[in-house]
């Protein structure tokens, strides 16, 4: 390998091993992030400068094993088979080393240049586990480095070691199973004419009954799953245990019973609900007090600018208006909501509260066919749909992520709340608003059940509960910045272009034409005044704008003069449920591709139309 080449380093490890912490610790602020939408589980890549070398770092999804049973595992296995990397860093939580070694042995079977990273070594020592990394190196044939990623310890050494391994293409020793299994592996290799270590890997996986590998080899589909697969896994497990015992000494460390007491106190029966609900109230408090307050301050200069621009005529002013509108739209999402919500989310993630909340809500969420974890995007959705969609990352399966994305789009975000408060509260009072929100939850629960009936049910809950940890502010900031930057570079430009496009429509006087074109729908089906047509279209940009535009279109702030109570309710209903804002659309597109985004927009509009249409008979 030449010195000036980019060295590609992949991070592989089990969930909660601190892999992402390591990634963030080195990726730093200057990283260029790009995700790969369309693939089932996206992984993050970034380029960093390390000494005089350029490293491309690939963060693979966390997997307990490499059995292709779920999307994350499949994506990791495909990546490993494609071989577009120079070295794999196998990150493990050293405090659960015996279990983590099973993945290490699976990686060894993939026959890739690798380094073992014994992360969270401080926690292991606290637990009384003392690891001799030199012994591990002798046994596996590859280097092992101790790190504490969250404090940045050992990272430099780890990466130098990884570069050395990459340049020497140093591969681990292959290990042998017992004779009987080895004979079967040999037979299988012969039968399908598989050769070398790659062939050995395929043979082992075929015997394990792995569907992905079976489908790759002609004729292997017919091999029946026998006891052999279980034996192979058991042996690998025993090997991991033996290796652990050979390289680590376990002293009786001080175990924290305090943590268990806290868990028993917070997560039992009604106290579990009390704890989670207070957590959510706190979250909502952040959204509505801090977010709203920041929004006012951050947006006031832009609103003044827009006011100023609107006083002038001519198309250049209209385009400038569109430009400013697009910038403002981005700011309205990023500063007040994205940053505080992501910050809070990262913090609770690091402390270890999130999986506990998921646990507490599991029972309720299963009733609408979802996992306990999906409660988090829902709550964040009350602030802003964009970070809510971002947070679906914590869900395991693609179908769950899509389901939750679809349903969070129906939750009134703060922008829609502005409209609801302005219209429902002003003309109906507090009780009407409370009723409106309850009805909204009912609609989501009903649709959730319906979708659950159509798709495979959420798998039973089984997640690891990490120990409570003290968060490191630096790490939290990095995480937040990583995701915010992602939004700035991906969504903002489209938002600005879209905004200018809408302004151009206005310049060419398309408003009247759009209104009359949409009239059969807006007046006929929805029963709204025909001026609502453009308001609804332009509202896609920023939903809180629809309120202002409605006032503009009617020419009065006293809407009740021109619209009946029924019309006001129907307008609010439609605004709440139809296509989410442009930022949401862009984000859904980036995460799930065009087809799903299109379907979700249709789904939203259908729900909105149906509800508004039905409301005609009530009000």
């Amino acid at each position, binding site marked *: 390998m030449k010195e000036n080449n980019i060295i590609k380093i992949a991070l592989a490890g089990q969930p909660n091993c601190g892999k992402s912490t390591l990634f963030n610790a080195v990726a730093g602020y200057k990283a260029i992030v790009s995700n790969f939408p369309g693939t089932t589980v996206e992984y993050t890549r970034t380029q960093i400068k390390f000494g005089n070398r350029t490293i491309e770092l690939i963060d693979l999804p966390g997997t307990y094993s490499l059995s292709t049973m779920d999307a994350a595992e499949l994506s990791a296995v495909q990546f490993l088979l494609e071989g577009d990397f120079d070295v794999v860093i196998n990150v493990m939580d050293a405090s659960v080393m015996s*279990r983590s070694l099973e993945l290490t042995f699976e990686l060894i079977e993939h026959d890739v240049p690798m380094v073992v990273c014994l992360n969270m070594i401080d926690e292991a020592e606290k637990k009384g586990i003392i690891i001799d990394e030199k012994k591990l190196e002798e046994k596996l044939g590859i280097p092992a480095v101790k790190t504490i990623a969250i404090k940045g310890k050992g990272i430099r050494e780890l990466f130098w070691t990884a570069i050395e391994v990459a340049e020497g293409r140093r591969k681990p020793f292959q290990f042998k199973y017992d004779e009987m299994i080895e004979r079967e592996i040999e037979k299988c290799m012969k039968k399908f004419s598989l050769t070398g270590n790659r062939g050995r890997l395929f043979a082992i996986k075929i015997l394990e*009954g792995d569907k992905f590998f079976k489908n790759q080899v002609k004729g292997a589909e017919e091999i029946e799953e026998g006891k052999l697969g279980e034996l192979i896994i058991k042996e690998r*497990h025993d090997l991991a245990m033996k290796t652990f015992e050979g390289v680590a000494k376990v002293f009786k460390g001080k175990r924290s019973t305090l943590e268990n007491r806290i868990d028993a106190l917070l997560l039992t029966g009604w106290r579990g609900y009390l704890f989670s609900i207070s957590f959510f109230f706190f979250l909502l408090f952040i959204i509505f007090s801090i977010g709203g307050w920041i929004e006012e301050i951050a947006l006031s200069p832009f609103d003044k600018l827009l006011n100023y621009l609107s006083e002038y005529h001519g198309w250049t002013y209209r385009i400038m208006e569109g430009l400013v509108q697009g910038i403002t739209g981005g700011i309205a999402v990023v500063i007040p909501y994205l940053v505080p919500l992501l910050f809070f989310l990262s913090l609770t993630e690091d402390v270890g509260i999130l999986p506990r909340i998921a646990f507490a809500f599991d029972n309720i969420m299963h009733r609408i066919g979802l996992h306990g974890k999906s409660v988090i995007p829902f709550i964040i959705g009350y602030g802003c749909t964009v970070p809510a969609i971002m947070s679906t990352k914590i869900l395991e399966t693609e179908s769950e992520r899509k389901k939750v994305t679809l349903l969070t789009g129906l939750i009134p975000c703060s922008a829609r709340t502005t409209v609801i408060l302005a219209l429902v509260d002003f003309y109906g009072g507090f009780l009407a608003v409370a009723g409106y929100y309850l009805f909204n939850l009912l609609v989501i629960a009903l649709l959730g059940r319906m979708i659950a009936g159509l798709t495979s049910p959420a798998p*039973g*809950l*089984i*997640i690891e*509960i990490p120990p409570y940890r003290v968060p490191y502010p630096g790490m939290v900031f990095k995480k937040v910045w990583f995701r915010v930057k992602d939004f700035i570079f991906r969504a903002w430009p489209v938002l600005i272009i879209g905004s200018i496009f809408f302004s151009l429509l206005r310049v060419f006087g398309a408003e009247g034409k759009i209104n009359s074109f949409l009239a059969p729908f807006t007046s006929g089906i929805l029963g709204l005044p025909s001026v609502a047509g453009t308001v609804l279209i332009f509202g896609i940009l920023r939903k809180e704008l629809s309120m202002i535009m409605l006032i503009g279109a009617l020419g009065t702030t006293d809407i009740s003069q021109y619209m009946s109570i029924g019309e006001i309710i129907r307008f609010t209903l439609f605004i709440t449920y139809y296509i989410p804002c442009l930022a949401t659309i862009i984000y859904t597109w980036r995460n799930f591709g065009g087809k799903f985004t299109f379907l979700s927009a249709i789904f939203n509009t259908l729900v909105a139309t149906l509800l508004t249409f039905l409301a005609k008979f009530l009000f």
Partner: protein
Amino acid sequence: MTIADAKKGKNVRIKDFTGGWGFRRKILSLGIEPGDEVVVVAGMEETGPFIIENLTKGTKIAIGRGMAQKIIVEEIE
């Protein structure tokens, strides 16, 4: 007895798993296996999930009741 029937705070030992290969694999990959000493730390409602600590490995998991009923345990004398 399954772990779903175990008393909170009482240490028990895992004897075996029932249920399909997929479940066994998942639970084994989480580092839970026969012979491990485990204890129920917390449990939501009657029908809800549990938090189980694996004392042998020093790990903790949340697990749905349906899955917990597939983990056969015995009391420790």
